[in-house]
């Protein structure tokens, strides 16, 4: 891992990355096989040998849903410093991700490293487009809260733009902007929340808010915006129209692999950094999709040491755009996302009353 901290987070080309990952993923697989009995059993039952190195695509991948159903950890309880939970609409099970000191630290370091590419090396004053109650109220504490807390380390004078009722607090925003009028501003929030409670509020009022010095990072997906026909292009264009913001970056990531997030670059492509890789698999047989072919997204991360989440199969559909060839100049794979796979209509004769 050490070598990765020294360099730019998008510095590894295909060859270098392949070489590094073959060692690191084997090392992690061994570690989890030693520490996590169910994982070791899975490797055995799948006839997977940890005695030799494999191509990156040949390592087993765990479906994300397993983390919702089982408590998977590779270290003793006494070593766990933090447990992360995933989002999940009410009634759904949530993932539980167990972090030890090393994994937790590495997640933070990787997040800082990746985002500093877009935010600059210095900490910026930070405006969170959400309500403080999301992090304050432990009962409501969710992935949203965890995400906010995680990212808020990246800024200073962290200020919440929405009040408890999710209304845009113009006074607070004006005061914040006045105070930091000489600096760039770091804005952070969730894709849907920003649109619903920030963009719409700005679009409605006459007085303008100037965020031309702002850099917005947002994640969470466009799924809820589909019904309003808002795609990434529209999103950026409209935000620019209402507050003059030019730098709007989407990110993709999941709680099962916190830290090694995928950032959208200036050319609208999502990038795998040195800390993670993306594979696209054909759902029919899990074979590898070629560039430009849609399939299930598999995420590989070099960070997870305390739980076997270094290679997971998401329920998102995406496609590879290219590798080492983005016009932005960053190395690594680039991809785009088409959102979540469709829920099934299951046939069968049980369950007369479906749950609401």
């Amino acid at each position, binding site marked *: 891992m050490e070598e990765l901290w020294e360099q730019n987070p998008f510095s590894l080309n295909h060859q270098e990355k392949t070489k590094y990952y073959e060692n690191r993923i084997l090392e992690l697989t061994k570690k989890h096989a030693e520490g996590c009995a169910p994982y070791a*059993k899975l490797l055995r039952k799948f006839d997977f040998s940890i005695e030799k190195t494999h191509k990156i695509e040949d390592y087993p991948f*765990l479906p994300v849903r397993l983390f919702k159903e089982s408590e998977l950890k590779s270290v003793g309880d006494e070593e766990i410093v933090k447990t992360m939970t995933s989002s999940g609409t009410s009634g759904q099970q949530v993932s539980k991700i167990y972090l030890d000191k090393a994994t937790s630290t590495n997640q933070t370091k990787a997040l800082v490293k990746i985002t500093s590419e877009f935010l600059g090396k210095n900490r910026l004053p930070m405006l969170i487009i959400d309500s403080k109650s999301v992090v304050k109220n432990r009962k409501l504490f969710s992935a949203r809260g965890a995400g906010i807390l995680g990212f808020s380390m990246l800024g200073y004078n962290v200020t919440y733009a929405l009040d408890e009722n999710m209304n845009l607090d113009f006074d607070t925003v004006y005061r914040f902007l006045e105070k930091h009028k000489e600096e760039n501003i770091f804005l952070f929030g969730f894709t849907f929340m920003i649109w619903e409670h920030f963009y719409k509020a700005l679009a409605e009022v006459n007085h303008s808010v100037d965020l031309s010095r702002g850099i917005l990072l947002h994640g969470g997906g466009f799924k809820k915006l589909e019904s309003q026909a808002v795609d990434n292009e529209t999103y950026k264009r409209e935000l620019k129209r209402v507050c003059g913001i030019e730098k709007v970056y989407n990110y993709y990531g999941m709680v099962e692999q916190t830290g090694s997030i995928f950032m959208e670059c200036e050319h609208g492509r999502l990038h795998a950094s040195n800390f993670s890789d993306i594979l696209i698999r054909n*759902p029919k047989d899990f074979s590898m999709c070629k560039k430009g072919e849609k399939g299930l997204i598999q995420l590989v991360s070099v960070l997870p040491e305390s739980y076997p989440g270094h290679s997971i199969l998401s329920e998102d559909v995406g496609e590879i755009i290219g590798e080492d060839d983005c016009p932005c100049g960053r190395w690594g794979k680039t991809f785009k996302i088409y959102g979540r796979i469709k829920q099934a209509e299951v*046939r*069968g004769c*049980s369950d007369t009353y479906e749950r609401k």
Partner: protein
Amino acid sequence: MRENKKVQIVLGDKEPKPTVRQVYDKLAVEFLNELSGWLRHCKEAGEYADVMSVAFWCRRGNIEKLREGLEDGLLHLGRGLLFHITPSNVPVNFVFSYFFGLLSGNANIVRLPSKDFPQVRILCQGIEEVLSHQEYRELRDTVQFVRYDRDKEINDYYSGICDGRIVWGGDETIGMLRQSPIPPKAVEVVFADRFSFGVIQSEAVVNASREELSRLAKNFYNDTYLMDQNACSTPHFIFWLGDQTEKGAEIFWEAVYQEALQYPLEDIKAVDKYTQLCRLAMEREDIKKIEQTAYSNLLYVVTLQDIPKDLEELRGSFGLFFQCPIHNLEQLSDVISPKSQTMLTFGVNSEKIDSFLREKGLRGIDRVVPFGKALDMGVIWDGYDIVRTLSRVVTHLL
């Protein structure tokens, strides 16, 4: 139940009064036969295999055959009014439930699937139209199809006025309906969660002709994939008998895979199935072998070392099956429970099955049928003679 806004009436103007007719009453048989004709002439109905199976089932010839099973010289009459709760995710089950109620001489209130299946619409349209004929006027007032969300108050009402209650949909639904009492004299037919499995004589597969093998695979596909393995009579586990179990299994699954190529494996199903497989691999020590990649994601076969104690927990879906070899049927006695429903067979000696069923004192296994017939609905189902149960025998001594 008048003026309840929560109940949507789909068919039948009035709430039916208890009405008693003779079992397999002539008018009812005529009505069903005409409905069969209507469905067979309906172009849209032709697009749905399950609607066609309904049309086939309710033609006169079939019903007459069923009637013969009840010809014992005694007087069989209905009980009055039946209340049916039918499964939300099987499009045509409700209509069979209604047929059983009608043929057993009763008036019927049927709660339909909440999902708006085209099959439900077609069937309702056919019933409505045939019932509108003058000669079936008597029957028209004896049926109502309703829709409503989970609602105890409505369940209470219908349960309170019925002479018999039919509950499909498994343990949870039964538990819920049991909160709503039925009158002391009323009968109840419930279809609980069940487990089904198959037994195959390995030599029979090894020696099967190409046609026989492909028919077996087709039948197996229809028993399983067709309903995503979610029907209670769908087999999840295959027990192999005989001396060529490995070879038999290899030939069988290859044939099943060829048949499964037509299965629409949606992305979510592929992920679900893979998740099941990973969970099994993480949890079960008794897995001997996992066939995952051999048949792409269409078919996963998990071979266990021995007959599992928790057999009935091992349910796959979307094409995930379990198997293990056995020496004889008797070995299964310990894992057969009241939950065991259908045993599908291929090439197994019929006398051996018969003595197994008769002599082992099993609390389960209500059906033994060849592959391909798992989902065939009959008046005898789940161990009930449904028409007999929903009717009564009148003793008339002179």
